[in-house]
């Protein structure tokens, strides 16, 4: 399993997670993915990367610093994107049910990302 594959596998073990991906931030293209059947990976990657880029630009414009994490809560699920320094210009994107324990997702992601560094 590749290093990214292990990251995704650990994140996906959190109950409620429907899949995760490593996505190129600028292009919104998938670098590696591990998704449940039926999750539209390409669309999630492109749309979430776009949200992250917009949020990053907005917060830099507001002098709040560089965005590290974006989370969108919807009626029927949750989208999560993190840009840890160890991933460079890549994003970790997670798709989950609305009831997922986000703290657990962040913890698992942080553990593996630290190991990547």
């Amino acid at each position: 399993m590749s290093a990214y594959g292990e990251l995704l596998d650990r994140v996906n073990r959190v109950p409620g997670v429907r899949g995760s991906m490593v996505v190129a931030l600028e292009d919104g293209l998938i670098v590696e993915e591990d998704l449940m059947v039926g999750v539209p990976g390409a669309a999630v990657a492109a749309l979430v990367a776009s949200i992250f880029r917009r949020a990053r630009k907005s917060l830099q414009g507001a002098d709040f610093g560089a965005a590290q994490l974006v989370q969108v809560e919807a009626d029927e699920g949750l989208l999560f994107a993190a840009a840890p320094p160890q991933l460079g210009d890549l994003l970790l994107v997670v798709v989950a049910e609305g009831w997922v324990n986000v703290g657990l997702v962040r913890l698992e992601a942080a553990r593996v990302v630290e190991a990547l560094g």
Partner: protein
Amino acid sequence: MSATPQQVRQWSDEVAADPGSPAFRPLAEHYRDAGRPDAALRLVIRGLERHPNDVEAHHLLGVLYREGGELVKAFDEWDIALALDAEHFPSRRAIGLLLAERGELEAAERHLEKALQGDSFDPEIRAALEDIHVRRKDGRGRAGARGRPAPAVEEPPAAPPESLAAASAAPPAPAPAEVPAPVPAAPAAGGEFDAVEAELAALGNERGIIGAVVLDPQGFVIAGRMHVGDRDRGPEIAAVLSPSSAEAERAVRHLKMGGWKSILVETADAVVRLAPTPDGGMVAVAGRRDVPMGWVLRVAGRARDAAIRFLRASGGPA
């Protein structure tokens, strides 16, 4: 894409001059596309006589047999293609789909899972695998690969034009996440605007909170302040934050996740939470990272409640 007449002539000339020319394959594909499967079959069969190890030709012949209803012959051709090249994903895909149709679920699943490695976005493979998993749920065969429940977010189907038009014509309608708290005792100043300003100012003075603003759908500040440095930067911040809600709305609409309920953005120094209001605007609350996240979110919830009360009181949508 269809071949030009010049290309067809060129291929025909090449194959006529040399029956071993590899041009037999694109020419056969052209005839298949043109509704002449008989000509395509003859070309491929003749081509394979000279190129028996041409994987693509075996795959194409399988496709032609399949389209002609000769399923056993189609299976054999794809089987040959895979024997020649186990990584030939189109043949893997085709044979997997055929096995799924035949009800040979385990074999179909093996082939289709492997074919998914060649194109993980293939909607037909995904649909077939989903169908296999569903058919297994009634007890036939082994459990699915990870045993996860059926997903709620599905691959967006090819919607007819009317529904796409309806979806894009409908205004963004983010649903409020929770019912607002009961109305607290009104501050001393009169008027709805003064009331919400006072409430937001009080929230902005809470420990670790940078500020709270209510924005209208155009991104203008209705009430509140956001002090960064020594001045109120609420209007600027509103202008740059507003497009984020449009992005979130587009994403959840496209992914069929309902309406957006909140956006949380974290930087090294700050946390910003955006939440929609019933009039299509939003509430933005920013807090510093030196206080617990849960506290910032709690304050954000109170700011949203205040905004909703204000909108109701001032005649806006509830």
